[in-house]
C-alpha cells in the first residue's frame, strides 16, 4: 500500500515503470501476462505442428457424417444412420439422466444416513457409521463393477425368469429391470390435465396456508389437502372416465416375447448398476456433510426450541435444518459435481454416456481424438459450471444475509429507468419491509415459462432436429453463426436460472438475450425455423416481442419477486 495523497505532478518517464512503486506491480503483471500468453501460444502451435507431422488436420466436419453404430439406450430418435452429433447428444442425455437420478437418490440417501448417524439409537448410528466409512473408502469404479457383476451373475436370464416371473409386475433379469408402464388411451388427456391442475392447485394452497399461518398463526392441514389435490383429483377423473368409457390410462406389464421381455418400462442393468453405485457412494459423502451441518448448529438452539414446546421433528425442520443448510450446501455442490463427473465411468458397465459415444465409439471410428476429446471436455465443463451456478444461486437464498452482503450498488439495466420507476432500495432478509417469497409467483411465472420454452427450442434446434432439409448440421454453419447461437443458448439458460432464483440480474441477462437474439439473426441464423409448424417471421418477431414484454415487466412491473440480492422499490 502506498500512501500518496497528491496526484503525481512530475512528468511521466519510461523508467518510472520499474522504479516507481506505483507502476511497478502493473509492469510486473503485464510482463507475466505476456509470458502466460506466449506459453499458451507455444502449446497451441506445438499441438498444431505435431498434428501436421502426423498428417492430421483439425476439423469437426467428421461429426456431421453418419455414425453407423447403434446405441441401446436413447432418449431421442436415433438410428445408425444419424450423425455423430446426434449420437453425441444421445450420450450426453444419458449422462444427464444418470446424473440427475444419481443426485436425487444420493441426496435422499445422504440426508437420511447423515441424520441417522446422529441418532440416539446406538445400533442405528453405528450401522450408519459402518455404511459411510465402508462405502467412502472403496473406489467407486469397483462398486460399479461389483453391482453389475451381481446383476449379471445372480439374476436369471429372461428365459429362465419365464413368463410368470412378475413380482408386483416387476421382472428382474440379468439384462435389466422391467417395470409396468402406463399406456395412454382415449381420454387420458383429461387425467393428465387433472394432474397438472392438481399440482398447480397444491402449490397455490401451500402458499395460501403459509400466508394464513404468517398472518393469523392458524395452521391449516397441508399434507392431506396437497395429497388429495395431486393424487386424489386425477384418480377421481380417471375413475369417472373409466366408469363411462373404459379406463383412459392402463398399465402395461412386461411380457416374455421372443428373446426378451416386452412392454412396460425397461431399465437396463448398466443404468441401474451405475445409478445405484454412484448414489450409494456419493450419498456417503453427503451424509457426512449433513452431519457436519447439523452439528454446526449449537445445542442451545435445540434446547430453546424444546423449551418453546416444539416437537422433535418440528425442531429439526424449522430450527436446525434451515441453519444447517448454509453449511451443507457449498460442499453439496462439489458432491453433485463429483457424481456427474464420476458418471463417465459408465463405459465400465457398457452404459452409453457421452464418454461412451462421443469419447468412445465416435472417437474410435473417426480417429479424431483431439476434436472429440475437446468437445467432451467442453460438455463436462459446461454441465459442471451449470450445476455449480444453480447451486450457488440456491445458496444465495438459504445463506444468512448479513449486514455486509447484498450491497446492490453494481450497475444494472434496471437502474437506467430510476427516474421513471423511482429509486430502488436494498432490502435484506430480516428487514421489516422484506416479504419472504415462497417460490416463483405471479407474472414472473410467465417470464420463467418464456425462457424455458426458448431454451428448449434452441437446444432442439442445435442438436435434435436431424433433418437436413430443415437446417444444416451445426458444424457446417459459419463460425460467426456457431458462436452467436452458442452465446444465445448460454444467455437464455442464464436468464432462465436467474429468473427461477429471482436474482435481480435477470434484468440484465434478459436484455443480453434479446440483444444476442438480434445479433444471431443478423449473423444469418435461421431462428424462425426453430418452431417448424409456425411461420418463420411470426416466430422471430413474436419471440422478440415476448422478450421485450418480459423486460418491461421486470423493469416497470410491481416486481415483488426479484428480491434476492435485494433491490426492491422504495415505498412512498
Amino acid at each position: 500500500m502506498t500512501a500518496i495523497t497528491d496526484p503525481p505532478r512530475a512528468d511521466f518517464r519510461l523508467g518510472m515503470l520499474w522504479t516507481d512503486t506505483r507502476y511497478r506491480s502493473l509492469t510486473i503483471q503485464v510482463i507475466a501476462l505476456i509470458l502466460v500468453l506466449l506459453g499458451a501460444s507455444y502449446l497451441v502451435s506445438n499441438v498444431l505442428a505435431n498434428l501436421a507431422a502426423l498428417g492430421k488436420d483439425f476439423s469437426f466436419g467428421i461429426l456431421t457424417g453418419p455414425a453407423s453404430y447403434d446405441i441401446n439406450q436413447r432418449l431421442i430418435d436415433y438410428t445408425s444412420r444419424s450423425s455423430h452429433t446426434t449420437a453425441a447428444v444421445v450420450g450426453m442425455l444419458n449422462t444427464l439422466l444418470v446424473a440427475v437420478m444419481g443426485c436425487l437418490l444420493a441426496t435422499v440417501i445422504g440426508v437420511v444416513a447423515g441424520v441417522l448417524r446422529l441418532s440416539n439409537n446406538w445400533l442405528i448410528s453405528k450401522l450408519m457409521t459402518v455404511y459411510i466409512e465402508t462405502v467412502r473408502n472403496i473406489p467407486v469404479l469397483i462398486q460399479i463393477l461389483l453391482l453389475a457383476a451381481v446383476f449379471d451373475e445372480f439374476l436369471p436370464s429372461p428365459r429362465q425368469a419365464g413368463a410368470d416371473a412378475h413380482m408386483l409386475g416387476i421382472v428382474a433379469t440379468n439384462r435389466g429391470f422391467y417395470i409396468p408402464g402406463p399406456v395412454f388411451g382415449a381420454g387420458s388427456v383429461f387425467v393428465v390435465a387433472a394432474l397438472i391442475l392438481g399440482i398447480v392447485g397444491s402449490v397455490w394452497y401451500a402458499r395460501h396456508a403459509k400466508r394464513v399461518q404468517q398472518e393469523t398463526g392458524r395452521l391449516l392441514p397441508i399434507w392431506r389437502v396437497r395429497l388429495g389435490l395431486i393424487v386424489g383429483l386425477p384418480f377421481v377423473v380417471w375413475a369417472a372416465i373409466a366408469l363411462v368409457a373404459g379406463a383412459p390410462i392402463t398399465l402395461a406389464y412386461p411380457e416374455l416375447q421372443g428373446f426378451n421381455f416386452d412392454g412396460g418400462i425397461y431399465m437396463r442393468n448398466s443404468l441401474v448398476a451405475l445409478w445405484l453405485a454412484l448414489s450409494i457412494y456419493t450419498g456417503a459423502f453427503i451424509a457426512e456433510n449433513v452431519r457436519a451441518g447439523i452439528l454446526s448448529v449449537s445445542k442451545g438452539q435445540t434446547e430453546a426450541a424444546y423449551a418453546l414446546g416444539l416437537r422433535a421433528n418440528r425442531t429439526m425442520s424449522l430450527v436446525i435444518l434451515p441453519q444447517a443448510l448454509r453449511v451443507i450446501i457449498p460442499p453439496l455442490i462439489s458432491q453433485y459435481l463429483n457424481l456427474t463427473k464420476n458418471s463417465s465411468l459408465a463405459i465400465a458397465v457398457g452404459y452409453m454416456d457421452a464418454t461412451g459415444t462421443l469419447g468412445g465409439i465416435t472417437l474410435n471410428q473417426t480417429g479424431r481424438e483431439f476434436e472429440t476429446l475437446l468437445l467432451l471436455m467442453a460438455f463436462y465443463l459446461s454441465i459442471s459450471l451449470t450445476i455449480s451456478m444453480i447451486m450457488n444461486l440456491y445458496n444465495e437464498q438459504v445463506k444468512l444475509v448479513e449486514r455486509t452482503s447484498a450491497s446492490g450498488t453494481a450497475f444494472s439495466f434496471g437502474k437506467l429507468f430510476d427516474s421513471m420507476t423511482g429509486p430502488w432500495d436494498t432490502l435484506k432478509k430480516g428487514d421489516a419491509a422484506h416479504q419472504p417469497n415462497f417460490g416463483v409467483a405471479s407474472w414472473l411465472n410467465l417470464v420463467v415459462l418464456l425462457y424455458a420454452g426458448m431454451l428448449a427450442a434452441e437446444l432442439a434446434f442445435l442438436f435434435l432436429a436431424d433433418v437436413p432439409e430443415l437446417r444444416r448440421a451445426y458444424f457446417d454453419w459459419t463460425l460467426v453463426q456457431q458462436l452467436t447461437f452458442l452465446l444465445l443458448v448460454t444467455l437464455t439458460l442464464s436468464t432462465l436460472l436467474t429468473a427461477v432464483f429471482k436474482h435481480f440480474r435477470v434484468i440484465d441477462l434478459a436484455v443480453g438475450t434479446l440483444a444476442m437474439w438480434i445479433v444471431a439473426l443478423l449473423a444469418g441464423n435461421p431462428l424462425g425455423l426453430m418452431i417448424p409448424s409456425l411461420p418463420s417471421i411470426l416466430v422471430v418477431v413474436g419471440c422478440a416481442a415476448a422478450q421485450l414484454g418480459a423486460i418491461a415487466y421486470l423493469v416497470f412491473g410491481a416486481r415483488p419477486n426479484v428480491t434476492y440480492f435485494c433491490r426492491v422499490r422504495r415505498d412512498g
Partner: protein
Amino acid sequence: MKRNLLIGAVAAAAGMTAAGAASAATLDDVKAKGFVQCGVATGVPGFAYTEASGEWTGFDVAVCRAVAAAIFGDAQAVKFTPTTGKTRFTALASGEIDMLARNTTWTFSRDVDLKFTFVGVNYYDGQGFMVPKALGVTSAKELDGATVCIQTGTTTELNLADYFRINNMSYEPVPIETNAEAQQKYLANACDVYTTDASGLAATRSTFEAPKDHVILPEIISKEPLGPLVRHGDSEWADVVRWAFNAMVIAEELGVTSENVEEMAKGTDNPEINRMLGTEGEYGAMLGLDKNFAVNIIKTVGNYGEVFNEFIGPDTAIGLERGLNAQWTQGGLLYAPPFR
C-alpha cells in the same frame, strides 16, 4: 532492464517453438533400443495369449516375433503392449508401439484417414454370430429382437448395425470392452448372441466348459481381412514388416520349413529359395537387414502353415480350417508377391 527481460523471454519462447519434429527412421530406433515394441490383443485364444510362463504367444504374436527375428535374429527381442479395440490406434499413432499385430481389419478409412499402412493380410476372416444351442436358432435372420454382445470400437459394431438395418430387424446392442468380459456376459446369458470375427468366435468357444452347447451361425456378414499395420510415413519400416511376413508365406509356398531351412540355406536348385534365404543376391541389405534374415524367421518362428497349424489349425482346440487362408495354389487367397 525491463526491455532486456522481455526480449529474453520472447527469444526463449521462440526457441522452444522451433523444437519438436517426429523422427522417421523406425528401423534405426528399433535397432538402437534392441527390441521391437509390438501391440497385440489383450487375450484371444490362439491369436494372442500368455502361456503359463508369462510368454506371449499365438498366431498374431508370431508376426511380431518374425519381425524381431528378421532384425535381430532373435524372436525373443520383442516387448508386447496389450491393446484394446479402443486403445490400439492411439498407441500406434503416438509411437508407443512400433507395429500392431492384433486382428485388425484393413479398411479404407483406417488406411487413408487414420494414416496407417497395412502391410498384408495374415488372416482372411468374416464376422459371424455365436448362440447357445438351446435357443434353437439356426440362422442369423431369426435374431430379430435379440440382445447382442459386441466389442466396442471395432468394425463389427458397424457391420452389425448395417446387417440388422438392411434386414429390417431390431436388436439390443450391449457394448463391451474386451473379449474376456464379453465371454463372461455371454455365458451368464446376459446376451443371447455374441458377435465378432468368426475366428475369434471359434477361439472363444474353445475355452468354454462345454463348447458343443454353442453354435456358430452359417451367415458371415462381412469381409474382415486382418493384418499387421504400421504408421504412415516410414516406408522402409513398412517394407521390413511386410517382407518379414511375406517370407513366412513364400516359405510355405516353396516348402521351406523350420526343419529343413538350415539345409536349404546352404543352397538349392530353386533360385527363388536361394534369393530369399540369402545365398543369392543382396536382398537383406536392401531392407537394411542381414542377408539371412528370412532364415532366422523360418528357423525360430516357422513358415505360415506351421504357425497356423501350431496355434489355430484343425488339430488345436480352436480347430480352424485353412479355408480362405490356404495358399493360392491350394485354392485359397494367400498370394505373396514373388521374392525377386
